[in-house]
């Protein structure tokens, strides 16, 4: 039970999440995203083994972002009519407006939670393999992306190296943040130039080992769609249905 979300087929999970987000985006009442958010948290509580401390840490910026949405929608909201519930600094807030503001803020929360669900329960490499096997992503692209992914730590080292090289030659970091933003060029160009050379080398290496990028019928690591995926699709659609119908009914 606790590893159902982890064992799902990544492509199925990806499609379900995208579909749910597109569906929720049609609703402007506060209840639908709230119910959906609650449903997703419940799903994570019962069907995954995730580190909740880390979860909170990742959610923190979105709590803040949701607050930003809340107040901009209140202040810059479209004229919707409705009765004024309170006034502040010359701004009249109607109940309609407040409901919409809450809805957008909850939407931010629901979407972030849904995204974290994916991030915390999906193995990146398996996701790419599944995109190739279930969604027919071209192997050329799929393995291309995986090469990039494998280079991540190398890039990190290179970034430190370039910075150290600059310091060694006495290139100073500017104090002001906007100046530092312009200085990014000094690190970015060498990194990109390095990336070009690495790309050439690894492409040659792949071709030398017989990689053609042709679509294939058999895979070394097959990723399949199983019974779990049908079950979980049912659960997702149930949550979606409850929040859409329940939300419209409650408001």
């Amino acid at each position, binding site marked *: 039970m606790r590893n159902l979300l982890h064992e799902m087929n990544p492509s199925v999970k*990806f499609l379900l*999440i*995208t579909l749910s*987000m597109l569906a929720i*985006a049609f609703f*402007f009442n506060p209840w639908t995203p709230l119910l959906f958010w609650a449903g997703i948290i419940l799903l994570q509580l019962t069907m995954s083994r995730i580190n909740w401390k880390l979860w909170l840490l*990742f*959610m923190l*910026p979105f709590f*803040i*972002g949701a*607050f*930003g*949405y809340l107040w*901009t*929608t209140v202040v*810059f*909201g*479209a*004229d919707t009519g409705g009765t004024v519930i309170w006034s502040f600094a010359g701004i009249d807030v109607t109940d309609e407006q407040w409901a*919409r503001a809450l*809805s*957008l803020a909850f*939407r931010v929360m629901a979407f*972030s939670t849904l*995204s974290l*669900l*994916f*991030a915390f329960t999906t193995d*990146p490499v398996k996701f*790419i393999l599944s995109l190739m096997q279930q969604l027919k992503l*071209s192997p*050329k*692209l799929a393995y*291309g*992306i995986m*090469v*990039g*992914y494998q*280079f*991540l730590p190398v*890039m990190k080292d290179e970034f430190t190296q370039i910075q150290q090289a600059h310091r060694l030659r006495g290139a100073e970091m500017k104090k002001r943040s906007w100046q530092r933003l312009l200085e990014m*060029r000094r690190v*970015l*160009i060498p*990194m*990109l*130039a390095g*990336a*070009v*050379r*690495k*790309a*050439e080398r*690894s*492409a*040659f290496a*792949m071709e030398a080992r017989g*990689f053609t*990028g042709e679509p294939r019928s058999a895979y070394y690591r097959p990723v399949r769609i199983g019974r779990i995926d049908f079950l979980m699709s049912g659960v997702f659609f149930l949550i979606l249905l409850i929040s859409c119908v329940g939300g419209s009914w409650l408001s």
Partner: protein
Amino acid sequence: MLKSWKLKEVVLMSLFAVVFGIIYLLFVHAANIWAAVIGPLAYEWMFGIWFIVSIICMYIIRKPGAAFMSETMAAAIEVLIGNAMGPRLILSGVIQGLGAEAAFALTGYKHFNILVLMLAGIGSAVFSFVYSYFISGYAALDPSFVALMFTIRVLSGAIIAGIGGKYIGDALLATGSLRGYAIARAKKGDVNA
């Protein structure tokens, strides 16, 4: 579409996607903190940064699909790194990439001057704005505020992605590492630039 692509071009896009994927993520976090203070407007002026990889890759590789695929790859890499925006980034990457691609397709993939690159930035801005309008529920906002957001995003797309993208592409060409790509051949005069 991929038949005419060399593997090294695909891998090049992927490695650029890694570099820019990291930059994109840094700016997502910066923007999120900003967003708390000034609301969704915080994202708008930064949007050009998130379009830049498609313009740089198209400027270098000059093959149909370069803008669309590189932006999508950058989004995929962001998801692989792991972040709280998650799979929805892939969808927005696809849409932004299509916007830039549309601009290049309009010009028949023949011209890659600064105007076309800026047009591609604007294309990304327009496409992504339509998507944001829907997914973030801008319909709930005042039309004049939405118009302001749209203007800032288009400007950001044209200036940061268009001009910035060309600037980075040219700087990279000057390092000499791009020999063997369309951009270097065009400079020599084999292909009309």
